[in-house]
């Protein structure tokens, strides 16, 4: 359209100039939130249709961080996929490692020494503490509490990351679990440090809850917002704290009893309303239970090897077959499905990512709420885009 096509404003409306104010009333506005938006936790995009400030339609768009993880897994050796699983949910590399190792161990029929099982539980529960602490920080950051809760959360997270670094050599990309055990043994000094952290973490949680749980602004922003019914949650395959906040008692640690979890005494916290506040609260209670599990594990950890002596690093070829290994990750059920044809690479490598499947009901949660609530609801779903897009 050239400039000459537009009639000057003083002239009567021509074919190209419409009286806008006539159509303005009652129109819907379509806003693209993301992919470059700090509240979307990465490169996630929501196409939000708004009536005033109320969301009437929400279309999630993802795939901006797609990097062919599953296809690469088919062309890499079984061991070679292990460091890539760190990069799925980069906050929880230890649980990703465990789920993948569990799938391969099912495929090859390897056993894991008891000490390694204990170490896995310790690391998985530390990861749960880390993830839920960060989630609470992010949620508050998303609802407008700039800085303070997130910084407190990161201060504590740093201590757990120091433990990971001392054990595995890396803070976040741990690459620690192996098929048939763990890569390195924990020294007594490390276990003592873990005990100190476990003892102190309850105190931090008390302080954190004092800051947040009773806070009227947080309650106003989260209670009754983004309500998820148990029926919808089960129908959509939601897992993890989101499902439990909706009141469904489903925890793979209890249902499957993988690893040595049946030996441990812990409770599964449930929510009553399924709203954003319940999702926050369930996570805080889960952290308390994690501390409980950590205490038991650090008390009972036996001596012994951490690696199955028959485990092979080079020339690892499991027999043909298929296996699905799943664990209760901090975000939900993280599972790996593998088909082996007896070669050094899997024939098919598939990830069941919790945040991707939990994200599918975003529209149902957000309808009828405002844009600002959408951000808080997204924060409470707890997504990591590295896992959503793979």
């Amino acid at each position, binding site marked *: 359209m050239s400039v000459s096509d537009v009639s000057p404003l003083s002239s009567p409306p021509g074919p190209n100039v419409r009286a806008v104010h006539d159509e303005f009333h009652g129109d819907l506005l379509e806003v693209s939130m993301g992919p470059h938006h700090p509240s979307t936790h990465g490169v996630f995009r929501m196409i939000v249709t708004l009536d005033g400030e109320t969301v009437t339609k929400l279309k999630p768009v993802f795939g901006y961080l797609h990097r062919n993880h599953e296809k690469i897994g088919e062309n890499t050796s079984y061991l070679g996929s292990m*460091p890539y699983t760190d990069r799925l949910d980069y906050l929880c590399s230890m649980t990703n490692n465990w789920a993948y190792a569990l799938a391969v161990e099912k495929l090859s029929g390897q056993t894991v020494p008891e000490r390694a099982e204990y170490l896995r539980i310790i690391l998985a529960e530390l990861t749960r503490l880390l993830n839920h602490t960060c989630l609470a920080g992010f949620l508050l950051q998303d609802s407008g509490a700039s800085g303070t809760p997130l910084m407190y959360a990161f201060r504590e997270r740093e201590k757990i990351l120091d433990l990971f*670094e001392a054990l595995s050599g890396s803070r976040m990309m741990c*690459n620690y679990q*192996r098929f048939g055990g763990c890569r390195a043994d924990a020294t007594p000094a490390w276990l003592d440090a873990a005990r100190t952290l476990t003892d102190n973490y309850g105190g931090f949680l008390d302080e954190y809850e004092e800051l947040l749980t*009773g806070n009227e602004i947080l309650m106003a922003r989260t209670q009754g917002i983004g309500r998820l019914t148990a029926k919808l949650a089960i129908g959509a395959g939601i897992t993890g704290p989101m499902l439990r906040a909706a009141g469904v008692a489903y925890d793979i640690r209890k249902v499957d009893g993988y690893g040595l979890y049946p030996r441990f005494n812990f409770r599964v916290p449930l929510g009553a309303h399924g709203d954003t506040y319940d999702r926050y609260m369930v996570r805080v209670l889960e952290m308390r239970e994690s501390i409980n599990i950590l205490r038991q594990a650090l008390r009972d950890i036996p001596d012994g090897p951490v690696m199955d002596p028959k485990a092979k*690093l*080079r020339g690892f070829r499991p027999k043909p077959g298929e296996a699905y290994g799943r664990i209760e990750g901090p975000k939900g059920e993280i599972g790996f499905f593998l088909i082996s044809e007896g070669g050094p690479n899997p024939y098919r490598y598939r990830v069941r990512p919790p945040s991707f499947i939990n994200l599918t009901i975003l529209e149902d949660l957000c309808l009828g709420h405002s844009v600002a609530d959408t951000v808080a609801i997204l924060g409470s779903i707890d997504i990591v885009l590295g896992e959503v897009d793979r």
Partner: protein
Amino acid sequence: MLGTGLIQGLAVTARNFVGSFHGTKRFVTTQYPEERTKLPEAYRNFPFLVCESADDPMGTLRCVACQICEKECPPQCIYIEKSKDKKPDANGKMQIYPAVFDIDIAVCMSCQICVEVCPFDAIEMDQVFEIAATDRFTGLMMDRHALAKPNGYFHQIHPTQAEEVDSRLAAERLAAEKKAQAAAAAKAAPRPAPAPPAQSPGAPSAQAPKPAAPAA
């Protein structure tokens, strides 16, 4: 009463704010680069090649260019060319050596798999992290001269692991020497039966790789 939770929260914030000026419990920031935290022994970032002597790094590389790490590296950042000739290694044994050994550490993801699969303990993880380069294509492409670092350095950064590796290598060397002596004795003895074909003194004893050792 409405607002109690808010005031409670503000008290927590105030406690933390004031507390960060008194005592070290809440004082957690390290002022890098003036201050540095001590790296844990297990810390890893990029691989380096172990050589026996700092004076002649290229002559004493432990690497025999078997290319296992090149094959196993998940992002495939290692490139090796075998030498055509053989050179005596640190033990005086004739070995193939890497004519080219490049690691593109811009691609490397520090997963340590090369270290775990190496049957000769020739590649280990370094701890140097201040390696920013101004040239994005060649600045982070490390050749074998840049990668070679002496065993003493390995002892400095990973003392426990280096100790284990050294004792294992010493045991292997001892076993190889014994085997060589036995073979030599068998050869010298006037016997009609042919000496066992394997393990003449010149043959590399490390042909049968030891079971891969998990890194300590």
